[in-house]
């Protein structure tokens, strides 16, 4: 799977969050890091990037309850009729659309009765429309509030979650996450650990199957 990560940030080099993501993605094969730093896009090249990607991840800090201007400009110019949709529907079918969004306010400020008066999901609604219009499947987003305040453990978990987000077909699915960890362990010659992790996951799947059968039996 080939992933295109489109990064929009007005001061990219000074962003600790984006630097963290860039370093997290560095070791991944088949992931293209594509910061929007130019005012003049080579439209043919940009469209080629889009068309060859299996997954497009739009990555940005929330600016006035939306993406920064550079992302909208890129979408306005590159994602046009004839490229991403036509009169028959979306032209990006089979691709997935991911969102990696961060913000500096507290999570409560986007909660019910929070000072913003809307949720982060509300701010991302246009991307639901974009996915639907272009035929893409939208992935559950990664939302990162207050990166600077995160603990080391939370950052470690975020790093792995992000790597899985860029490389797994269904990154939210725990069985796929377990297989990813097992592969990573084998690449580090930790085969005994990988086997034990896989056995543990198999036990969990078997137990869940038993639970499902017992529930079904009670409904009969």
């Amino acid at each position, binding site marked *: 799977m080939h992933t295109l990560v489109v990064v929009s940030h007005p001061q990219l080099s000074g962003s600790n969050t984006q630097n963290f993501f860039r370093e997290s993605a560095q070791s991944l094969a088949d992931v293209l890091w594509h910061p929007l730093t130019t005012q003049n896009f080579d439209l043919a090249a940009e469209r080629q990037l889009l068309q060859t990607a299996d997954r497009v991840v739009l990555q940005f800090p929330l600016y006035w309850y939306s993406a920064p201007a550079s992302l909208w400009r890129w979408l306005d110019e590159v994602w046009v009729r004839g490229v991403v949709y036509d009169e028959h529907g979306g032209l990006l079918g089979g691709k997935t659309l991911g969102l990696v969004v961060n913000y500096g306010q507290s999570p409560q400020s986007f909660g019910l009765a929070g000072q913003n008066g809307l949720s982060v999901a509300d701010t991302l609604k246009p991307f639901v429309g974009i996915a639907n219009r272009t035929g893409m499947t939208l992935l559950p987003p990664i939302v990162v509030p207050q990166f600077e305040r995160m603990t080391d453990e939370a*950052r470690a*978990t975020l790093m792995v979650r992000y790597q899985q987000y860029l490389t797994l077909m269904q990154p939210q699915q*725990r069985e796929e996450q377990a297989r990813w960890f097992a592969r990573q362990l084998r690449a580090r010659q930790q085969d005994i650990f990988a086997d034990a992790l896989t056995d543990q996951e198999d036990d969990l799947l078997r137990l869940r199957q038993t639970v499902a059968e017992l529930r079904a039996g009670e409904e009969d």
Partner: protein
Amino acid sequence: MADDTRGKWLVAEAQRLSTQQDNYAEQAFYTALAAFCAEQQHELELAAGEVDGRSWNHEQW
């Protein structure tokens, strides 16, 4: 209850390996792995508890 020996070993081993790494990315990998294994063990205990609870159905005595 499910035997939790393997689950506890996985978490402890991931934590041990995390402390042995010099490189941040490797440390972070094992730290995240420990969190994943802890969550996996928790899910196993929940599922095992539900199997016990549903198997102990007095209406089927």
